[in-house]
């Protein structure tokens, strides 16, 4: 049973409150802080009141926990079975977690239960020891706030060696690839992990001293002509973008979405894939790209 109160924010926050109460550190203010941090916006109305009034008889008048121990809870079978299923995912090799405690657990599902039918075929080599080593070094650098020297081949095949500050690993399920996001001397670097030949940990850096580069974002404005279930298909397809949709008329909608200018070509072909259902109206440079592709295509068919 997935939808259960034992996984809920209220149970978690009450456990945190009781834990602090066991140490004798709980105050009204701290209780409110914990509720704000771990539960929902309106939880501050419900949780402290229930604890203070004795509706949930867990705290005494002096805000001491009446329990004998700090609250803990074993993992549920669902949680263990999910963890066990992950052990068959080839990407788990990148993380190398301690699997103690899962020996006699059945996985929640077999990996081949899922078919990612439109995932690209050239995903990262998760079984390659060199790839795993580079990935783990990069991950360590992010975690420990260390600089990194990376040697990699660019998309043209040219060799590069850069010193950088890695700050995230970005994964795309469509591409089945990890990209390292790093700041260097010049600008934001996005490096495909599969192109990295070696990674070397360098000195620690002061996180306060770096400013993450701003994404070069742009707004795309499109008209959506709702036919062939286009409204649902388009909005779901672009749902991972920050976007706003407005209904202009019957079966006519306007979509504004923000995209990274570096991904313009990818976005262009995604818009093209919807055919006449989508009509780009801004920015004009994007409209020109659409117009050009269509015109070239027309010409090719005329030849």
């Amino acid at each position, binding site marked *: 049973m997935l939808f259960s109160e034992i996984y809920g924010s209220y149970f978690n926050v009450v456990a945190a409150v009781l834990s602090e109460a066991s140490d004798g550190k709980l105050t009204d203010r701290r209780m409110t802080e914990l509720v704000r941090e771990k539960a929902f916006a309106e939880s501050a109305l419900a949780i402290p009141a229930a604890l203070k009034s004795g509706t949930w008889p867990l705290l005494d008048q002096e805000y001491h926990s009446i329990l004998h121990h700090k609250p803990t809870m074993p993992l549920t079978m669902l949680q263990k079975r999910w963890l066990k299923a992950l052990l068959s995912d080839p990407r788990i090799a990148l993380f190398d977690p301690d699997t103690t405690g899962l020996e006699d657990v059945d996985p929640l599902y077999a990996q081949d239960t*899922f078919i990612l039918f439109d995932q690209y075929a050239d995903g990262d080599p998760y079984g390659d020891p060199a790839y795993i080593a580079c990935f783990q070094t990069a991950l360590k650098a992010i*975690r420990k706030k260390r600089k990194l020297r990376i040697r990699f081949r660019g998309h043209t095949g040219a060799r590069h060696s850069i010193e950088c500050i890695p700050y995230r690993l970005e994964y795309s399920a469509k591409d089945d690839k990890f990209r390292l996001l790093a700041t260097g001397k010049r600008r934001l670097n996005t490096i495909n992990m599969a192109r990295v030949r070696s990674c070397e940990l360098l000195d620690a850096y002061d996180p306060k001293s770096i400013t993450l580069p701003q994404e070069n974002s742009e707004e795309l404005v499109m008209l959506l002509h709702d036919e062939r279930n286009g409204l649902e298909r388009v909005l779901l397809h672009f749902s*991972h973008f920050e*976007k706003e949709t407005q209904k202009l008329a019957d079966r006519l909608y306007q979509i504004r979405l923000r995209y990274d200018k570096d991904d313009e070509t990818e976005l262009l072909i995604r818009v093209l894939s919807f055919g006449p259902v989508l009509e780009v109206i801004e920015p004009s440079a994007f409209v020109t790209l659409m117009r050009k592709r269509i015109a070239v295509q027309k010409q090719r068919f005329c030849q």
Partner: protein
Amino acid sequence: MAYSELVKSFERIRSYMREFYVYGFKSREEYSIKSARSYDNERRRIESWIGDFMSFHQDTSGKNVFLSVDSRRIPHNPLHKAFKAKSFTDKDITLHFYVMDLLADGSALSSREIVDCINDDYLSHFSGAFSPDESTVRKKLKEYEALGLLSSEKCGREVLYRRTDDNTVDLNTWADALSFFSEEDPLGVIGSFLIDKLEKPSDSFRFKHHYMLHALDSDVLCDLLAAIDEKRAAELTVKSLRSGRDYQRTVCPLKIYVSTQSGRQYLLGYHYRGRHLSFFRLDAIKKVTIGNVEKHYSKYLGYQEKFDQHLWGVSTGPDHNLDHIEMTVHFDPGEEFVLHRLEREKRHGTVELLDSQTCRFSADVYDASEILPWLRTFIGRIVDLKCSSQYVLDMFQEDLARMDALYGGGNDVIQ
């Protein structure tokens, strides 16, 4: 009943969250299938859970609420929070902490002993607090045993309960894996529950092309996985995406097909009455009732394996016959990435290099019209298109002509 930010059933909130996240242009009045009060309550709840990601705009139709977030900028799916808002009774939460505490030292106690301890150790601090009866406690113990929090053993006529954390998993070593798989695994919400147990969750990952909406179907998916794991039939209650009406189907669930590009997930199952394989969108399935063990499971799985060899997406076409399609593509010097694109993006078929700047993709699939969106991504490069389905060819040409009209013709832009 007084308003609460917690909910008993997930189904209604699932529907509202989907509407706010995917559409977001509807005004309060357009949610006419439910009452205005229901709308206000659900909107208020969602705002309480994930208000940081909610926006509003006002137009002539009224105030519209929508959820908008760039998946690349956040480490965790905010929709997981909905699964952490299950309602409970005062007894539920109180008994939870009492039972876990009484058994925390590894002891094994009967339900009677637990009731006695609750009264002596805890409730003696309060006057007028509730006093749990043994049957309530026993019910809770059995519930927790089913969840795997407790195990039981018979001792004479009594059943003793103890916690199951004697062989613990060190979650700290899983921190990065949890951060990653809580987003990328189809049941990542379970990872999110585990992250809540960590003192220092990892913040090392971000996700591109990330369809967070899948999370709302986790409960349904979890039931389907249980049926698949145990090779059992299942009765599905499905909401028709066209008519909005509910209908039932009894199927043998076989595989979950996940699209990394459209944001949709499907169950592929053997439909007993229709005697064929059928796809069901997970977001349309409202309820799964697990049935009997299926003796012919391997046979149906064999059907699926054969079926999968020519599926482009999730459509079998009108008659289960194969369409043959060929697309010849031109690329200029320095544009070899086009060839690489074909190789990595084709799901079936072959790519053949005809000369140094021309290649041909060909495939046999059940429904070539499903390939149309992908073909359109090569607009500007296609030199020839052939298909055994005239409908597909006509559709491509017609769409191209309409696109040309939309952009006002464009021969002047070619240099």
